[in-house]
């Protein structure tokens, strides 16, 4: 399947340009209620003001630190559990049904419980975010390690490798692409969880603040600016994820 380089294709910009054009036109001509649809210039103004005042930077910093902390914590735990499940069928049979049930619970339903157990501060947020990262990493690590082929296992027996060597030279390299996929997914999910955490567990600086404040203050321009920031960050994470996934594919094809 050809991967079209969308951003180079002028047709990709046709629809967005049309929509932005309509937006600008309707606010210039006063077709829409300015409270519900502020002019694009106003949104840019708000963006500039937030950047100037340093609010954007503080918010970004806070959100990204949370995101990263949760991502790392969740991935580490997920890797550990996934590895255990991968090597031990007993562990797999004991744990996977419970894990699958746990996975089914709509993610945001945990928020009230977390806030009662840990308050509304950073700890609760980071725990939420690590939960989001934990799930894909566990699943993919498990699959990756489990699918280390039989032949490789036999080779290790023939070569009489000790446990450490088996892990380092055999299992991990073979499972690496799949584990990478897990980490890529975890990156995306932890970002989504970061937004959720900031939304429901109040207080603190963050990237969602403009959006939430904008709703309370009826400042539509602020809301739209907030959404744009989130979209841009989402694009960034997506791009990183795609890049990592390509790396993983190349890895895989080398095996």
């Amino acid at each position: 399947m050809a991967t079209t380089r969308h951003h180079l294709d002028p047709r990709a910009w046709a629809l967005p340009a049309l929509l932005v054009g309509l937006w600008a036109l309707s606010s210039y001509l006063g077709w829409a209620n300015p409270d519900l649809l502020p002019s694009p210039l106003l949104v840019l103004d708000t963006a500039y003001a937030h950047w100037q005042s340093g609010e954007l930077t503080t918010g970004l910093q806070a959100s990204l630190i949370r995101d990263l902390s949760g991502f790392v914590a969740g991935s580490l735990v997920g890797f550990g559990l996934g590895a255990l499940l991968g090597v031990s069928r007993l562990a797999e049979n004991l744990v996977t049904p419970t894990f699958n049930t746990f996975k089914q619970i709509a993610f945001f339903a945990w928020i009230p419980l977390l806030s009662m157990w840990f308050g509304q501060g950073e700890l609760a947020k980071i725990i939420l975010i690590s939960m989001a990262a934990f799930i894909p990493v566990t699943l993919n690590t498990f699959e990756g390690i489990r699918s280390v082929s039989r032949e490789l296992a036999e080779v290790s027996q023939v070569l009489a490798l000790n446990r450490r060597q088996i892990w380092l030279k055999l299992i991990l390299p073979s499972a690496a692409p799949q584990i990478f996929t897990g980490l890529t997914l975890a990156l995306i999910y932890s970002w989504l969880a970061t937004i959720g955490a900031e939304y429901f567990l109040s207080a603190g600086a963050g990237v969602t603040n403009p959006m939430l404040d904008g709703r309370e203050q009826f400042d539509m321009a602020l809301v739209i600016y907030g959404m744009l920031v989130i979209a841009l960050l989402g694009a960034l994470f997506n791009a990183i994820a795609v890049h990592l996934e390509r790396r993983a594919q190349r890895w895989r094809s080398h095996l």
Partner: protein
Amino acid sequence: MKNVLKTLAPLALLLSLGAQAAENPTVIRFGSPIVGTGNRPVAYGSYYATAQTKALFEQEFKKDGIRVEWNNFKGAGPAVNEAVANNLLDITWEGDLPALIGKAGGLNTRLILASGFLNTYLLVPSNSTAETLEDLKGKKVAVFKGTAPQLSAAKILAEHNLKERDFRTISMDGNTATAALTTGDVDAIWTGSSAYQLVDRGVGKIVLDTRARSYELASQGFVLANEQFEQKYPHIVQRIVNVLVKEAVWSSEAANKSKVLQLWAKSGIPYSSLARDIEGIDLKRAQSPLLDPFFLANIKRNAEQAKKLNLLLGDVNIDEWQKPDYLQQALKEVGAEHYWTTYNAQGQPQG
């Protein structure tokens, strides 16, 4: 032997100094469930709020090198409870419902001061045709669940033979409720003393309020201390209570009324709106910190009603909960033993 003693002596001195230093906390964490407009951390409505605005505790404990931390929760009472449950606060102010819920739920708080009666209001959008509760049946009503206005509202509904289920009740915090009222997304909101600012802004009009029967229907305010903190640092708690009682005296003076309102207005709520809320109310009695029989009888009544209305699961032993020792001591030290009237359980002045 002498050498051993020589080396041990400075160590012993250090240890004893350390032990003395352990008698004071490094930080005192105050909590408040009230935020001003735009979520600014300025409260209003009580002497506890003005103590924050005037930075009285920062002044009091500066010489001891104890830091003072204030946390205003836009999540109101429930958020304060969550923080207390996680031992993140030492002294808090809470409305009756969240305080009772917290205590019944097992939070280790001690009631150290009373803090007034706060009115509850039912507002509808200014262009609404609804005039009574019955008009609003089946309509969308916003109340912040778990906060004092919810109990107040429930008591009023019970009197009209109505239940929360007769309406489409949505839980919203103060700012969200205001926004929803403005856009007409909800048909009514239950709110506290910030109601008049909505009226003055032309956003809503009052359909019901508790001002005529404050002492039965309005919400009580409590100043609570985290039991752990209180047991460890009773002398600090005494000093805190002294500051608060002094401030309560100052707030009760009729001459200071406008100054009090000005301080409250720093929250962003206009002076005039706040003034209208306390119009015709005995400010001295409203600011009384006394844990007198009337106040305690009201707590008992509120707890029973909350339980009946399924807002409270569990019992509160008021005699175990209250710790009036600090109050008594403070009244002596401040010289205010006879400043406020004590009311008996029937609401009659006694003594």
